[in-house]
């Protein structure tokens, strides 16, 4: 295919064939049609064209196989798809259901270099949790229609509101204890409960429950958005 760009439709076909060729029954016209949500007759036409371009080996009524050229293109596309989805989820913080269709659309336009740089960036953030935290803060701040987030100490955070930990402004044993229990900058924290006597509080962080006194929580700076539970 050299530098000649294939149509995104062709790429979708190749990706679908690659995906189906790993199933026991192989890539058959009916299966391809179902996966791509088109008529079987449309698939037949497309396959004939792909056959002519030397991307697939196609005989009607038999399973389709990819030629070495076709396989290279299909794998490239699939790889870009995975890299894009990871970037969208890990770096941009999209949910899987939002990330998937976007990745499907972008995989055709992204060049190999773009995919490689996106992977690098995702790796970079994974290796630098501090940077990730800053980026999370920036993202959190920009979210919504410019409504600024509120910054406060953890003891002022209303019950049930999710907040982002910005910093632990205390020295010594308390800070050591807090960070080893997982209260680090960039982590999300919720005040779950206040003790009946008003102190201490129970928070949820990293999927478990932790209790601390209000005086201790006062050393933790958090950012949150009012009205966003």
């Amino acid at each position, binding site marked *: 295919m050299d530098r000649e760009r294939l149509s995104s439709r062709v790429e979708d076909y190749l990706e679908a064939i690659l995906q189906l060729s790993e199933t026991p029954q192989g890539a058959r016209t009916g299966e391809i049609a179902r996966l791509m949500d088109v008529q079987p007759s449309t698939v037949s036409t497309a396959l004939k064209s792909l056959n002519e371009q030397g991307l697939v080996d196609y005989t009607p009524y038999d399973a389709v196989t990819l030629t070495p050229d076709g396989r290279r293109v299909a794998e490239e596309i699939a790889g870009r798809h995975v890299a894009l989805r990871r970037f969208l989820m890990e770096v941009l913080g999209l949910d*899987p259901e939002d990330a998937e269709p976007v990745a499907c659309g972008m995989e055709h336009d992204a060049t190999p270099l773009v995919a490689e740089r996106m992977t690098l960036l995702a790796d970079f953030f*994974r*290796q*630098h*949790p*501090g940077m*990730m*935290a800053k980026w999370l803060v920036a993202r959190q701040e920009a979210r919504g229609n410019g409504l600024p987030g509120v910054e406060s100490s953890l003891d002022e955070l209303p019950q049930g509101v999710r907040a982002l930990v910005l*910093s*632990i402004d205390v020295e010594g*044993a*308390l*800070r*050591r*204890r*807090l*960070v*080893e*229990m*997982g*209260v*680090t*900058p*960039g*982590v999300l924290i919720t005040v*779950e*409960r*206040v*003790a*009946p*006597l*008003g*102190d*201490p509080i*129970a928070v949820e962080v*990293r*999927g*478990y*429950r*932790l*209790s*601390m*006194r209000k005086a*201790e929580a006062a050393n933790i700076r958090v950012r949150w958005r009012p009205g966003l539970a």
Partner: protein
Amino acid sequence: MARADNQRLLLLAGNPNSGKTSLFNWIAGTRQHVGNYPGVTVEKKSAVFDRDGLHVELVDLPGVYSLLAASPEEAIARDELMSGMADAVIQVVDATNLERNLHLTAQLTEMGLPLVYALNMSDEAEASGLKFDLDLLAGLLGGPVVPTNGSNGDGVAELMRVALEVAEAGTLCTSRVFYGLDLETSIAAIAGHFEGDDSISARRRAVALLDGIKDVHAPTGAVETAAQETTRLQRRVGRPLDVQLAEARYGFALGVATEASVGGVHRVVNDHTRRLDSIMLHRVWGLPIFVALMWALFNLVFALGELPMQWIENGLGWLSEGIQAVWPTDVLPMLESLLVDGVIGGVGGVISFLPNILLLFLGIAFLEDTGYMARVAFLMDRVMHKMGLHGKSFIPMLIGLGCTVPAIMATRTLESRRDRLTTIMVTPFVSCGARLVIYALLIPAFFPPLWRGWVLWGLYMSGILVAVGVARLLRGTLLRGESAPFVMELPPYRVPTGRSVLIHMWDRAWMYLQKAGTVILAFSILLWALGSFPQRRTFSRDYPAAIAQAASGEEAHELEAAWQREQLDYTAMGRIGRVIEPGLRPLGFDWRVSTALIGAFAAKELFVAQMGIVLSLGNVEETPETLRQTLRKYYTPLQGLAMMLFCLLSAPCMATVAVTRRETNSWGWAMGMLLAMTAIAWLVTFGVYQTGLWLGWGVG
């Protein structure tokens, strides 16, 4: 240290609440040995057993969240891991809380150990929708992963097999935390100064220096570079370095957890725990539920304990009668008296309260294993903090309801020495099970049924009130300063397994029994001797003849009592009792009570045995009810109350003094406790008794 070829040392490491101890119980069963690490008061649990022709020693390390050596437990765990003795280290990882558990893994991987992971509670995780790719997890963690279940022992055999395999092969953990380029550059620069070290230990020490750990053996060059790099990195990132390192470790933990979990979900909201907490920690109902639970615990202890207590008492009664029936007259009457009065009377009196104490410990073990104990600390911290204590101090004080000795040992969970000392000093004011023995005898003797519960409640409350006063006093004077952080995990609620509750209960009941078996037996014999010797040969009149000629049973009884008094008067104990009597008379105590209080110092419950001996020498067919009748004849309810109050607050038993000496590592604190408590008891009892007299309560 050289070891034979067939010996293997396995260490069990992990977070608190990871189910580490219940796994240990499954592996060790009854072969476990509980002791102390030398020089410190951290408990060492180990077990030795043979398996596949190997002589295996398994050590349960203290449960820790981190290995930065901030507490004695962390220091012990780190030192044991770093000693190079372990053939394999098993980390118990709670599958329902993988991320936090893997933070410890991040530190463990740095140590260059042969690591095996027990993915514990994997069944519970699966039930709540968490699934892990075990092969991938093993790959990411650099060591084999074995799913286990601490509640039914599933996977334990497999875990041992894999651990011994790793021990055999000596395969080291291959996983490392990547701290990010900046930090890695600094680490490499520092590690370069450790010449002659292998790369693993050089890297570990370099990281330890950056973590600000003080006791790292390092060349000056490394320390200087570490200081420079710390300043540079802190300025560059704008965050303290220990925070940066923790972030990287949590980055590793999060990465591994996300990647190894099927579908990327590794955190799960424990609905069950959330729902229970919304009841148990409810703003309005939380405290009433707490009080009700404690009240229920007490009723359980008394209602269920009564029947077996009767059996034991009857059994002991038959035993005494049996001995007397078969004992030939005129053969060593003193030996008969020693057996029946000293041994059976003294120790038997204690053993008969064992059902109560077992039930109390059972209840406490149940609360601990369900996860409610942490909630107790959470609910009570406000109050405890006001007292100058820590929420965690509540747990030792609750255990103090059973016995002060394990309670003082339980203060080990407190990290700060100040908090710990304060808790140790006030725990003896919490009324223990042995003092309950005294109340159980005296309350029914002096108070109508309707009052009994309230008198008992009042006594416990007075102990707590005095404890509050003393704690505040101590925190304001001798132990002034900041208290330790209250950053504490609230573990998920779990259904406790019968097995672990029983082992837990047995551990503590055994401590009580050992005390009853050894100290109390020795002292009840000593006290019997004090109360029997020297023997009086001549009396003011010929009592046996006078009793034989007595006109009525009543007169005979009076004569007998007078005879007893003369006998006891002459003995060592009677003499000591008389010496201290003037000092105790303002509290409403006569020489008998004074004498019995000498016994109560040996062990609180001996007060009962002692009152029995003092009031009925020569009359051995005693049961609590007849003892109560005798008590009623001699004392008023006000005096009864004064006795209980004094027993509650005065000198702790010898075992408490001994354990305080051991846990504080100072005779000063132990003796100070003894003297201060006695002084406080005197003042309070004096106040109560004199007020009572003034109000006209104790007359008639």
